[in-house]
């Protein structure tokens, strides 16, 4: 199991970084508290979650129709729609649009889908400069690192790390560890980029089929600048992000920022419905939407796993995960970390490569309790565990089913179930285990690395109970 080894190595490395763990713990605790403050009434919160869930679920139930409606409306509005089945296809569509327009520089708003397809690398290899403009993304781009959280990409960096990075890349700026000054430095550095970029690329939070509207939420204004200043705007999103009506927006826009970061509303809600019209003075003359499948339609076909697609990418499950808070996002080695990553990545990439993520879960249930669209994350994680080792499979089209099955493990459980089903065999087993307890091994691989080895008791529970006067009942 090479994948598992690599995964454990990353986890061990993360666990050894005490400073990072402390600061992550602190950040997550604050985020949890801020979220709670936005929802003082538990019952009302559950109503809001149920509403958000039903809006997303209904959209998924009508997904093919809504996608066609969205395409029709966007096309009427003058936005060009592209469909991509796989990352390579999405990348080449984007590259072609840029190439045709002779675009050499791109300024980018935050998009997890673009991370999913590794778009920056693809474009850079073809001579196009891509600048991340979200402050967190900008920081990790300078550090050549992937995001460690889906909405707070640089959460693993402190002010000193950022100060060093800025100083290294922009020695002309005075060294400072003051967050306000660092922020203003980033403003200065990126200002010209916005003004001079040939194209802007962004993600999408919700695509409204009824009116053909792409809705993006953000606090910084970099998303608005990226989608307004350059002459070309390319939005990329997963096919599951569509919702039916404008009236579906308010409940989702209400719950998203509250549950994500504990703020009642984001600074900007940016609703784009068309390119620059005649006589308008600004806005891109070309707007494109790339709809990416990348296994989403397979996930959609499964009765249980379709729930994965309700996700609105708020990150609350990550903020509340007791495993994530210890190891951080990079330990997962996946684009999406935490509970949602644990559910999504094995389905997207296959159980063989990503199935071991499901072992980084205690099934505590915190993620499901906070999910604003009520995705049953722990039960999906459990089902993925079963899919990865079972020989009997569900209706899902997930790849690598049974690929993590180990003969020794399967044999051990087989012996266990046979023994426990036969009273006489169980009798022999418990007699042997108690009488030969001195033979119990003191080292049990990884288990005894941090714990003492379990040793059977001298007498079985049955014997002890009989001594206490319980009869054979």
């Amino acid at each position, binding site marked *: 199991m090479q994948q598992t080894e690599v995964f454990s190595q990353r986890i061990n490395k993360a666990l050894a970084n005490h400073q990072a763990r402390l600061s992550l713990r602190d950040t997550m605790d604050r985020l949890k508290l801020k979220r709670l403050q936005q929802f003082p009434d538990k019952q009302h919160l559950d109503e809001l979650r149920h*509403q958000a869930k039903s809006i997303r679920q209904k959209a998924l139930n009508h997904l093919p129709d809504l996608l066609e409606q969205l395409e029709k409306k966007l096309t009427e509005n003058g936005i060009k729609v592209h469909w991509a089945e796989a990352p390579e296809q999405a990348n080449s569509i984007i590259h072609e649009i840029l190439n045709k327009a002779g675009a050499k520089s791109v300024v980018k708003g935050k998009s997890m889908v673009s991370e999913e397809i590794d778009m920056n690398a693809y474009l850079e290899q073809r001579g196009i400069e891509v600048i991340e403009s979200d402050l967190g993304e900008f920081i990790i781009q300078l550090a050549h690192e992937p995001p460690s959280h889906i909405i707070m990409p640089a959460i693993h*960096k402190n002010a000193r790390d950022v100060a060093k990075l800025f100083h290294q890349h922009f020695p002309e700026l005075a060294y400072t560890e003051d967050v306000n000054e660092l922020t203003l430095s980033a403003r200065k550095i990126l200002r010209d980029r916005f003004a001079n970029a040939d194209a802007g690329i962004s993600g999408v939070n919700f695509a409204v089929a009824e009116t*053909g509207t792409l809705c993006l939420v953000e*606090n910084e204004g970099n998303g608005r600048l990226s989608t307004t200043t350059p002459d070309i705007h390319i939005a990329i999103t997963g096919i599951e992000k569509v919702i039916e009506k404008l009236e579906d*927006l308010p409940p989702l826009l209400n719950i998203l920022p509250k549950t994500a970061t504990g703020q009642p509303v984001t600074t900007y809600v940016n609703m784009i419905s068309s390119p620059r019209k005649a006589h*308008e003075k600004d*806005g891109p003359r070309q707007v494109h939407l790339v709809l990416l499948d990348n296994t989403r339609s397979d996930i959609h076909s499964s009765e249980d796993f379709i729930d994965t697609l309700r996700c609105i990418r708020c990150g609350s499950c990550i903020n509340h995960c007791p495993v994530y808070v210890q190891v951080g996002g990079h330990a997962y080695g996946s684009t999406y970390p935490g509970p949602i990553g644990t559910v999504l990545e094995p389905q997207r990439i296959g159980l063989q490569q990503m199935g071991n993520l499901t072992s980084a879960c205690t099934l505590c249930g915190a993620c499901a309790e906070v999910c604003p669209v009520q995705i049953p994350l722990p039960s999906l994680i459990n089902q993925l565990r079963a899919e990865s080792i079972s020989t009997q499979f569900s209706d899902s089209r997930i790849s690598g089913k049974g690929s993590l099955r180990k003969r020794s493990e399967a044999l051990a459980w087989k012996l266990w179930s046979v023994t426990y089903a036969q009273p006489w065999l169980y009798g022999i087993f418990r007699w042997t285990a108690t009488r030969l307890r001195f033979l119990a091994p003191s080292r049990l691989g990884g288990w005894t690395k941090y714990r003492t080895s379990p040793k059977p008791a001298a007498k079985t529970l049955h014997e002890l109970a009989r001594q206490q006067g319980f009869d054979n009942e």
Partner: protein
Amino acid sequence: MSSARDNILKRLRSKPRDTGEVQDRLVPDHGWNQQEKIEHLSHQMQAVRTEVQRLGESQWIDWLNSELPKRKLNRVLTGHTNEGQAFKDRAETSLDVQYYAQNIESFKTGLFNKIDVGITTTRGGIADTGSLILWPDEHEPRLLSLVPPVHIALLKANEIYESLAQAIEIQEWEQGMPSNALLVSGPSKTADIQQTLAYGIHGPKELIVLILE
């Protein structure tokens, strides 16, 4: 018709899905009167460092004439709207007021470097989240509220709605959306460095809302 499109739609249609309806919308109905709506909106916006000024309906030009020079916001950009024109006509002589009336391609340097403040109208406000509805058009371009370091927005008190849901319903947004509609709920901000809140990252560093009663 691309084959990717057909393949994706075909896969999505491979299993019929039940089409359960969504429950009735939980549209919040607080029953706030105009004063309460103003107070809620102000409270929410001030919480994210927005300056809110309550003025008489015709006082705003005087307010701008007295405040802008004081704050050294002398290079003023407005839309070519009735309000923009009214202000340009009556602006203090020390203020350089111009319309955003040319295409961005020929105005980028000026817009990014030579403007202190952008003034826009709004299409209303939203009390419960403290948001402004911006509806840019050919007379009031999109970047006017975004690129200048200070944004001043005029908001009519009788156009404040309780919630976004109410605004969408009453203004019948589904009848037609502009190229770009916006909700703005404060000056630009970020917490991407160490989860520490900092204002003025990419959009306006300051937002001033003039509520006209």
